[in-house]
Each structure stands twice: as structure tokens, then as C-alpha cells.
């Protein structure tokens, strides 16, 4: 899988993370794996963690620690109502952008 350029990722990664968290609460290490499974490639925690902090500061997600039997306590992230609203606003814009990009790509290839 080719590595996506950092600059290209910057504008979309926080929304991708928010969408993953919206599917069910998750923790940092698992989130890296989920991003990889979704096709984003290997993204270092040094890139993801500041975004998680920023989203918490903006009230899009909340974090709370769980004690788990099989390993160390983990901080789990859950989407908030503000986060849901943010996604609702983001998705139409993203769809418009991808439609436009796909049209251009089709023109380039056709």
C-alpha cells in the first residue's frame, strides 16, 4: 500500500478518526490499526495523538479510562453530540469534493 502524503492527510485525518470513533468507542492503539485496515496505511501515533487531544479540546470526543482484565487500563474515546453534528456537516462537503475529483479523474483517464 502506497504511503499517503502527510499534507494530503492533514485535512482529512481528523474526520477519518472521528468516523471510526463514531462507529464505536475505541482506544489509541486500536485506532491506529483501524486506520490501517481502512486503507490509510501506517500512521504513526505521533500524528494521531495530537488530533485526539484537539478533538477533545473542541468537544467532538470525550475520553475515559477503562480497567480491562487482559491488559493495562486504556483510555477509550467516544463521540459526542457535537462530534456527530460535525460529521453531519463534513460528509456532504466531502461527497461534493470526491464527486468533483472523480469527474476530473474520469476526464484525465478517458
Amino acid at each position: 500500500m502506497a504511503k499517503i502524503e502527510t499534507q494530503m492527510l492533514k485535512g482529512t485525518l481528523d474526520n477519518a478518526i472521528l468516523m471510526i470513533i463514531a462507529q464505536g468507542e475505541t482506544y489509541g492503539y486500536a485506532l491506529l490499526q483501524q486506520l490501517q485496515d481502512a486503507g490509510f496505511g501506517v500512521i504513526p501515533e505521533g500524528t494521531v495523538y495530537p488530533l485526539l487531544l484537539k478533538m477533545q479540546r473542541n468537544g467532538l470526543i470525550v475520553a475515559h479510562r477503562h480497567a480491562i482484565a487482559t491488559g493495562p487500563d486504556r483510555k477509550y474515546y467516544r463521540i459526542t453530540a457535537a462530534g456527530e453534528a460535525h460529521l453531519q456537516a463534513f460528509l456532504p462537503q466531502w461527497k461534493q469534493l470526491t464527486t468533483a475529483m472523480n469527474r476530473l479523474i474520469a476526464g484525465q483517464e478517458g
Partner: protein
Amino acid sequence: MDLFTENDERLKQLHGLNKMYAETLIGYLRAYRGKDALAREDTIEDLLTDMVAAQADGITSKDHFGKDPQAAADEILSELPRAPKAQWLLLYWPLVNSLWDLVFVFGISLLLTGETVNVNTLLGWLVLPVFFIAVAPLFRGLGFNHIQRKTKWRASIALVLIIAFYAVLFAIPDMPALKMSVLQTGSGVAVAILVVCNLVMSFSLRRLALPWLLYWLIVGPSALALLGGGLPLGLAVVLLLVFMVAGAALNMYQSTHLHFVFQAQGGKRSQADR
């Protein structure tokens, strides 16, 4: 065990290059004093927990966290809340007390042995450590393999400041020796100020200020009394040495046990509060 110590234990679970990588990163995060210590340690807990998990999966800390840890750490720091005012007291109040303790006790031992103290010496004793403590954060980030330009600039500025400081110190003309009565009065006033400050602070930051209040109430009058008392010189010097060691031990205890404001207030924070 508090979160700071727990994180030090987590760090021990990393090995070899992973440990070195994490140590540098955590040292850098901790050296920035302007951020809330509890939020910072909470972040360090997350990072270390994940690095340990990555190590167990055969992933190096560098591959897991990234090839530019300083840039990532700077981004993390920018998202953390500012340090509360009391946290600055936690960092510097033991230093203020132990610094004056060293000057006070050492000054009295010099007077007892008939030596003189002038303003230059006193300034050197007081200002030199404060200056170096103030300049130390400018050397942050030198531990990373790839040193950023801003880190080099900061370290260069620190070196220039140190050279300029010594130049100023040497340029000050020699002042006459201070009279015994002036020193006694000055020391007494300084101790009284510290007693009052510690008394006021002990209402809110009990574990930080109360030990120093008791310390100064015992050491201040006792040390000053040695100047006029008829104790043999050897015994007086031993007593002063005991005072100095006690002050240094108190400073060391507070530096290693009071990491968070709630600890200085005398409270405990349970896992459920986090």
C-alpha cells in the same frame, strides 16, 4: 504510587532503543514546564502504554510513534492545558527555600569562623543558581537524534546568555565587606519573610509550605543564636551542617514526591477521579 512514578515504571517495560527513544520523548515533554502536569502525565501514560503494546507486537517505538518525535511532542504540548499558577510554586518554592537555606547557613558559618562576606559574594550565591535554573529549559530537545533548527537557536541563545551573565558578574566592582550587624539583620528579615510566606501558603498548599514553615521556625532563630552564643566552634559548625543537610533533604523529598498540585494540597487522587 502517583502517576508520575507509575509512568517511570512503565518506561522500564521498554527495552534497548525503544527505551532510549521514549526517555528522550518523555524528558522533552516533562521539561516544558508551562503545561498542566496532570494532563501531561496522563498523556505520557497513554503514549507509554501504547509503546509497550507496540513493542510486544514487534514494532519499534520509532516506527510506532514516528520519525520526528520532537514535532509530534510540540503538537501534543500545544494541545495540553496551561499549568495552574500553583504548579509554578510547586516547581520553584522548594528551590527558593533551599537556596536561601544554603546562603543563610553557609553565611553564618563563615561569620562564625571570622570570614567576611561582601555583596558580590552574596549576589553570586543567590543569582547564579536562579540564573542557571531559568536558562536550563532553553536546552530542551538536544537529546533527539535529529536536532531541529529552533532547538539549536535556543541552545545558542542560552550559551550567549551564560557568557553575558559571567561578563556582567566579573564587571561588577568589588564591594566592601558587609558588617556583622547588617548581615544579622538582613538574614533575620529574610527568614521572617520566608516564615510569613510559608505560613500564608500553608493554608492552601499544606504539604509544600508547612514543612518549610516549621524548618524556618526552628533553623532561623537557632542559627542566628549561634552567632552570639558561646558554643564551641566545632559544635556550631556541626549544627549548621545538620541544618543544611535537613534543608537539602526536604527539598529533595518535595521534588520527588510533590509532582501535582493536589499532592501539595494534601489530597489524594484515586483512579476513579481520572
